[in-house]
């Protein structure tokens, strides 16, 4: 295990930000801390980095007791949401910073910086100032800067949070590939479940200062341990008093056995998905959401006002 967190508590005044958190983060993996805003993800990450002190509990990084080590002695790479670039230094200088602090020979620094800039595809921007880079480029620079010190763990706090959707998607795929190349134990914070599901080897769901569930993306998605995890990892809707995913409901245009009668109230097409709001034709006349593919909608000729029959498909 690369990071061992035991019994960590953190309060800000009366507010409990972390409530007895225990967590083991495996070596060489990409772990996501996922949860709603204010859940304590950043606080936990900052405690691992030594940027914040826990009120109680311990942090062990690669077998070294780090609880009382200051940030500068932890050899942890940290990437911030808003880049935290050293504005007056060139891109190369930014990346060289940690190595210069460590008094490495000039030639070695130069070589390492060149190698890292190549890795993050910024070689041709070495002499620019951070203000002359795009957001995505700045964040890649910040990543190279953090990797320069050969950190024992790499921590990223919503690294793509300030970028637009397209760049976010590109960068997260790129981060995944980079991780497969570099293999440094990586923890990244996100409140975007799609990002976590797509990139992470393991996801830790955090809510209100507590860990709700730890597991692989598949485990979390298929076997959420509670309604919170289920609803946080994807869309849900209520059917017969149970939480189900809108695409785990099969729709029929004719009566079927155990089919729940309903009527399509509204429909909304989003790309290949078609979202249906259907009104159950029971006493409560509840409206629930069902997602079908465009193909299903066509073949069943589903339209507003049609009667349909619903069958939940998931176990």
């Amino acid at each position, binding site marked *: 295990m690369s990071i061992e967190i035991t019994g960590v508590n953190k309060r800000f005044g009366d507010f409990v930000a972390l409530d007895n958190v225990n967590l083991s983060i495996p070596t060489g993996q990409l772990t996501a801390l996922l949860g709603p805003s204010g859940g304590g993800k950043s606080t936990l990450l900052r405690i691992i980095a030594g940027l914040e002190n826990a009120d109680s509990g311990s942090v062990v990084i690669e077998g070294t007791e780090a609880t009382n080590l*200051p940030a500068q002695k932890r050899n942890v*790479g940290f990437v911030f949401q808003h880049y*935290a670039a050293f504005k*007056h230094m060139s891109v190369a200088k930014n990346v060289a*910073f940690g190595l210069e602090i460590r008094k490495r020979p000039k030639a070695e620094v130069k070589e390492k910086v060149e190698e890292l800039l190549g890795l993050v595809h910024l070689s041709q921007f070495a002499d620019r100032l951070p203000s002359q880079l795009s957001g995505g480029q700045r964040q890649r620079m910040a990543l190279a800067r*953090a990797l*320069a*010190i050969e950190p024992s763990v790499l921590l990223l706090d919503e690294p793509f949070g300030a970028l637009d959707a397209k760049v976010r998607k590109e960068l997260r795929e790129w981060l995944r590939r980079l991780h497969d190349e570099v293999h440094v134990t990586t923890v990244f914070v996100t409140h975007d479940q799609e990002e976590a599901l797509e990139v992470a080897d393991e996801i830790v769901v955090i809510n209100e200062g507590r860990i709700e569930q730890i597991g692989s993306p598949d485990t979390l998605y298929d076997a959420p341990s509670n309604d919170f995890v289920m609803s946080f990892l994807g869309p849900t809707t209520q059917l017969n008093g149970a939480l189900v995913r809108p695409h785990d409901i099969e729709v029929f245009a004719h009566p079927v056995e155990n089919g729940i009668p309903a009527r399509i109230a509204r429909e909304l097409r989003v790309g290949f998905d078609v979202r249906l709001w259907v009104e159950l034709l029971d006493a409560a006349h509840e409206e629930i959401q069902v997602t079908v593919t465009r193909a299903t909608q066509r073949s069943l000729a589903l339209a507003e006002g049609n009667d349909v029959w619903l069958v939940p498909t998931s176990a």
Partner: protein
Amino acid sequence: MSRKVNSLGRGSGLALGISLTWFSLLVLIPLAAVVVKSTAGGWSGFTHTLSNPQTQAALRLTIGDSLLVTVLNVVMGTVIAWVLVRERFPGAAILDVIIDLPFALPTIVAGLVLLSLYGPQSPFGVNEANTRNAVFLALAFVTLPFIVRTVQPVLEELDKDVEEAASSLGANGFTTFRRVILPSLVPAIAAGAGLSFARAISEYGSLVLLSGNLPFKTEVASVRIVGFIEGDNTAAASVIAVVLLVAALVVIVALDVVQRRVSRRG
């Protein structure tokens, strides 16, 4: 060359026109008048005024002490700004208000305050009246707020995460200050230093009472100017004014050069 995009359109042209006119009326024309006046006695009049030993002593004292005071302010002003922004201590809010006192006091009131504190009737028994220390003290007093007030807002706006990034990369507090924080403060420090120097070379009210205005000892340039004007020699007064003007320009340009150099390194 392509035309620069003017986002404010016509209105900004008007604003520019008004600004230039205003600036000319208030600054350029009077300055030009002083320069013209200083040459009233021709080149010989100019050199005659400047070769006077008493005038030279006054200029040396004024410019020398102003430079010293500015250097002192660069250090102390930055430290005080740092303490005000970063340290939590009782009375911080009061100190924050008091810093402006030298600005807020009419300079002659400041002079009176200094005289009663460090004059013959000093409650601490520190009598600096009629000494050169009095000049330095008065200059330090009135110029203290400049650098504090230019550095403070910049320090408040500094991103905490930049410092955190530096420490996670292994930098200790001092290295972080020197390589990350200081370069961002240098433009503000330079601006404050320019103001501080310009104020110091022209200071009059706060030091006339305590310094005693002794020729060759505690007489400063502004007192010398007043002396010339009272003797109806406005040309000589203008000559000194022009020297002060040049000194201020030199310092401001030098600060700008230093500032550009330093904030580019790191």
